[in-house]
């Protein structure tokens, strides 16, 4: 099993979500996050006062899935989240040792 973490532009969430469910991803976790990479924040001036936006708002998606599904999922995320501009985000993939569904105690793939 693998966990995919993807940082994407906020307005791409719906597209990515749709794309993922079309390839059979059953659930995902979404959070509103902020940060910076090569895309930096910016500064605004209004009536002499400066407003610094140090971090750029992004969406983080987390999905745990069967390792075999990962390549397809990554393709879908890339395709749907791409604008070709800076700040399109990143995808991280990491191994998952175990998954347990709290309600039933099921483990492994059954619990995904």
């Amino acid at each position: 099993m693998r966990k995919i973490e993807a940082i994407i532009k906020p307005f791409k969430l719906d597209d990515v979500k749709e794309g993922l469910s079309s390839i059979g991803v059953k659930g995902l976790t979404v959070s509103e996050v902020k940060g910076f990479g090569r895309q930096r924040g910016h500064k605004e001036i209004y009536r002499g006062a400066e407003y610094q936006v140090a971090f750029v708002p992004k969406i983080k998606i987390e999905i745990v899935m069967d390792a075999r599904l990962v390549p397809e999922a990554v393709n879908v995320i890339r395709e749907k989240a791409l604008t070709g501009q800076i700040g399109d985000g990143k995808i991280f993939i990491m191994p998952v040792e175990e998954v347990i569904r709290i309600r039933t105690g099921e483990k492994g793939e059954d619990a995904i």
Partner: protein
Amino acid sequence: MDNASIQADISSIRNPSFPDERLNFALRNFRQSKETLVSDFLESRIKESFHQAYSEIMDYYFRMTIEESRTGQSLFKKGTLFALVAVGGYGRKELCLHSDIDILILFNKGIPPQAKELAEELFYPLWDLGMDLGYGVRTVKDCLSLSKDDFEVLTSLIDIRFICGASQLYLRLIEGLQKKVIKKSASSYVKWIYERNDIRMNTFGDASHLLEPNLKEGIGGLREYHHIMWMAKAFLNVREPEDLKDLGRLSDNELNDLQDSVKFILLVRNHLHQLSGRKNDRLNFEYQEKIANRLGYKNLPKFPAVEQFLSTLHSAMESVKNIHRSFLALHLPKRNMKVSIIPEDISKEILVSDNEIGFISSEVINTDPPIIMDIFEQSCRLGLPLSLEARRQIKEFLNLVDDPFRSSERTVSCFLKIINGRNTVETLDQMFETGLLDAFIPEFGMIRDRVQFDAYHIFPVGRHVLETVANLKSLSRQKDLLLFDIFVDIKNHEHLFLAGLFHDIGKTGKGHARRGSQICRNILKRIGYPEKWAEEISFLINHHLLLAETATRRDLNDEKVIIDTARLIGDIERLKALYLLTWADSKATGPRAWNEWTENLVQELFFKVLHILEGDELATPGSSKKVMKLRSTLKRRISGDIDQPDFDRLFDAMSPRYKLNTPPADILRNMEMVLSFEKEAVVQKSTAFILDVREDRYDGFWKITFIGKDRPGLFSDIAGVLALNNINILSANIYTWRNGTAVDIFSVTKPLDSIHPSETWEKIISQLKNIFSGRLSLSYRMSLKAYPSILSERKTPARPPEVRIDNRSSDFFTLVEVFASDRIGLLYLITRTLFDLQLDIRIAKIGVKGDQIADVFYVRDLDGQKIYDENHFNEIKDALLYHLSGKL
């Protein structure tokens, strides 16, 4: 306690003894009756009467058990008086399915040793059934002295009810409470209730509790009804709610309202207990739909059952809250009063006393109904609340609010004064509670109790709207500097406040913003509001979601998104009002709708749109109209070569700047060219392009249009080829359409060979082809051309070249401004240098004045971002200056 008695204790717990069969019968009977009662309830044969019936079944169990209890009998024989008394919710006959049952065994003087056995006989069977039962064993005297010290005890005793046994004990307790406790500590008791209320509000008053209300402790919950009754019992010596009406403390309507609301809340609470299988007062999401279903609400097309149910519940809790609030206020020990000066101009029908404002009599309302509006205006101006009496009178006289009232100049002017006043929110709140707001603006009544069933909206619509106005009103003392500054910059605050008040007036289903703007237009027309301003307000309402939706759902780095938004909004004042309205509305919706994350996005959009509106010709009102007209103009003139889908596709692909700066005839021609370029591009993928050349007969210049696939360095290639052929560029408009097509339009000097110009153009076309396919090195050819010749006459530059970098003027590009003396090849040099520095030129404004050029290039790096790095700035400047001052 010695060992033996501990042992006895333990054994009695292990072996609860049921002394005879009758007791078992009492228990069996209790279980059976309870089961029947619950199934009657579930099948809706009984509803609100459950609580009373359940309490009576309970009473019956205790009476039967006592009658046959051995311990009870022996106490009777000895002449020891005792009584069973119900306490708390059981005393009030408000038992829900899993409510605690509190009971008191009352003795006369001293507690006999058998008391413990008695309790066991009575209560063990119930504990064995898993019921939550608490009991106390006390003498009347104990009760009285305990309740003097501990108001918690007093409160539980206020609701006592006699079940069985010696009734004289019960009567003595009641009398004692009244004479010895309540009379002496009345004011500290009220203070205690008030403090408890504050604590409760702090715990349960937070917004999240509005989503999943706590039916007992929450705002408008049963506890508030209990407060009313406790105070009434303590001070007015009443026993039943009806007494309050007889004493004139509540009007007929208020009493009915209170009783109906409490019944409804209890009914919901009982379903909640049954569904969750335990004592639970918080109406969690998971139960809301089920209960709506059980109560018989049916889904309507635009109004789901669960939302109907929650609306009813909220309005019931709102009623309890209001009656509770006025009741508390009336009995509160008066606290530090502000001395206020009663103004002289107050009308004589209105009376200020005790820091409250009221009518001198009901008569004045009858003879002059608009005075209802006057009194709120006075309340707003003076900052004094309406007296309870005045609120009641207004409620009773609401039928006097008719059409003439709603549109009379006097009431409308009061209404607007309230909107602009200092205590707007408090006043609107009172108007909301008394029902005047609904009466004056009937459209408001349609939405006030609507609830949205989701985790996003924490207030019912009516509350949400008042909360929005409160947020807008708070802007004048807002600590957030940006919000404050924007607020101060807005000229007309009244528009903003009215937009806040009416923004959700259309919330009776989907598309509420648009519907709301229409409804608002009607309301403003009715009250005679100037049409031009009404238009402004309904614009704000129609688009009150625009900023939030665009910020979270669209690409803010796409210039077109920003320009479209700017065009729709049209002017700066509106943008500012929309921003504030978005903030106030979102903040009143809930923490999910407005947090730092959303704020950042909306703020980014705000600034980008602001910059466009401030400086750019693209978003002036004229330009918006022009673009709108352009589409229909073009459609009319469309020729047979372009079909409809192609037209729509290409029109949407054009950049805003292109649409604005290109004459319609040229646009149509360019479209045809783009179509044939697209055909060609299928065959020769990388090298396809179209070059169109025409002579401008009047000016003696030539106009070149290049169409091809856009890529970095393209501009410099074209400029280079032209320079190679001794053609000077006088102006350049370079556009990139959204489909990646470059449409570059140049105005150039005529070829040296003016008799055979086409030869030059053909040469240029073939050179371009060779460059694109890598068979011609432009830099090499240019260096050959620059080889010093004794023939070349070089003027000394009139002024040294200058380069400025401007990062302020655009949110999407860094502007590189170049000033230098003009010469052939200069543009090639500049664009080549920019290409070297990995800069993508998206817009170029070429200005030639005499022999001076002033060019502006809008550039981004290859990632599409502006340049922020100081070193990068200096490199750009130095590189350009080096090339400009050097030789070709």
